[in-house]
């Protein structure tokens, strides 16, 4: 069986190899801090395997995460000058290789597709070939490895350090934004253990006037939106707002259609994801990947859509669900 952990190890070793390169990179004024950040991230990816199956304590990993937060948060990481080719060289190479260049690039989505549709159903000796529930991770992982092999052969590139270096400069430009989504998952868990949801429920039930279903819908949808903006993640907002408003007010008090209320409520939260800098993986990471001067570019492009869709969700819920 092909396991997701194998690819987490691969990503971990990728980060560690890049950290080694970073440490040797004299063009980076903060090379030690940068190497420490990515080295810890890589080591964390590997160590996590034992945390997940509970054979190693989670506390050292937590301490490492906080060290990474400090390294990146206090500006101790930086980036080197990328050794790359000139735009003219790339233009010439594009003309020479032509549309064959798309073959390895399209290998990733095609392999991901094959894994999700075909390989998912394959069994060998009664066991599924791909680990159940991890098909997206595996599709992306297998696709990337195959694409890299195809690309290296096709372009007759023999040095493995070339793709490593090219990928590294993208990682350096993302910097701390890489860690934020994983940190937010933690925040959601801490909030629920500490009882934040219960407090929000008390406040909303005292503020919300009895009897108006429409106000309940507005409170639920806008609550999901705002909490998602704060938490960076609709999944963390959902249990809080559903326990506070969605279930007690809309489903029980106003006899709403539960699947409709909850599905649309979650989507109202997704509108919040479109506008929050906290959702780094959807907003800051793409801005870094696309080399935008303004890291808020994607958020600005999404903002009108997000507010219109929040209105749509309120309308859909109040017309069809309650």
């Amino acid at each position: 069986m092909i396991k997701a952990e194998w690819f987490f190890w691969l990503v971990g070793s990728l980060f560690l190899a890049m950290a080694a390169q970073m440490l040797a990179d004299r063009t980076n004024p903060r090379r030690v801090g940068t190497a420490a950040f990515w080295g810890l991230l890589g080591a964390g990816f590997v160590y996590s395997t034992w945390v997940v199956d509970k054979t190693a304590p989670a506390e050292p990993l937590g301490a490492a995460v906080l060290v990474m937060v400090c390294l990146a948060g206090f500006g101790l990481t930086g980036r080197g000058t990328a050794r790359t080719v000139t735009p003219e060289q790339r233009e010439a190479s594009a003309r020479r290789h032509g549309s064959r260049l798309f073959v390895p690039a399209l290998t990733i989505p095609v392999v991901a597709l094959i894994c999700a549709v075909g390989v998912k159903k394959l069994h060998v000796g009664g066991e599924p070939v791909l680990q159940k529930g991890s098909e997206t991770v595996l599709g992306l992982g297998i696709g990337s490895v195959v694409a890299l092999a195809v690309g290296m052969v096709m372009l007759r590139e023999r040095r493995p350090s070339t793709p490593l270096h090219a990928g590294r400069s993208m990682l350096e430009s993302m910097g701390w934004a890489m860690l934020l989504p994983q940190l937010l998952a933690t925040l959601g868990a801490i909030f629920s253990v500490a009882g934040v949801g219960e407090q929000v429920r008390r406040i909303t039930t005292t503020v919300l006037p009895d009897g108006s279903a429409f106000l309940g819908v507005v409170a639920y949808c806008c609550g999901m939106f705002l909490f998602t903006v704060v938490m960076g993640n609709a999944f963390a907002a959902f249990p809080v707002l559903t326990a506070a408003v969605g279930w007690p007010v809309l489903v029980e008090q106003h006899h709403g259609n539960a699947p409709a209320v909850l599905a649309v409520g979650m989507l109202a939260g997704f509108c919040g994801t479109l506008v929050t800098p906290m959702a780094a993986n959807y907003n800051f990471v793409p801005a870094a990947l696309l080399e935008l001067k303004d890291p808020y570019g994607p958020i600005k492009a999404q903002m009108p859509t997000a507010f219109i869709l929040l209105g749509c969700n309120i309308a859909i819920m109040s017309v069809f669900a309650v």
Partner: protein
Amino acid sequence: MLVLLGVLVVVVGFATRRNPLLVVGVTGVATGLLGGLSPQKVLAAFGTGFASSRAVTIFAITLPVIGLLERYGLQEQARRLITRFAGLTAGRFLALYLLLRQITAALGLNGVFGHAQTVRPLAAPMAEGAAERRHGPLTEKAREKVRSFAASADNVGFFFGEDVFLAVGSILLITGFVNTTYHTHLEPLRLALWAIPTALCALAVHGCRLLRLDRTLEHAKPDLAGAAK
């Protein structure tokens, strides 16, 4: 009430534009301690949170091959290819991308498209190429706009497509939470069906905004004819 200080820390951190990583780190530690967790428990929470959420960082695995291909001119080729399709403007191309992203996500094919594997190497340069063919060389501002909209097409398509699929994380989170908390039985299928109205709204709203991008770019163009007079 004290635990709500965490929410306040996030809001203040944002308003003063602190590094989000620090804001979230401080909020997590403060909320955990105020909520009565021991320092050891807080550390363990950070550790398990990191370990169980590694899947969001898996896209890093695509970067070496994307970087390699870009060295050999992938973006330039994407830009050249798009100019062969005369009717495909930047707006129309991105609206098409939005539709494809939404359909594949609705079929549960989340990994097929994405910022690292398709937006940066293919969709963004293609949209730029199409815009340049129609409007001439882009200003810095216009280029940023086209790229930002390319990222937005991926996000909107993904968010409002994935919930139409039954077995996606958010649907399973809803049924998991509600079924265990309220002892009821919700069918994932009915939740997925109720995601369709919003999915259609998203396609219409963002699709129209993407199509209008062409007009915005036309207006933003430096007025060359006027300068020549």
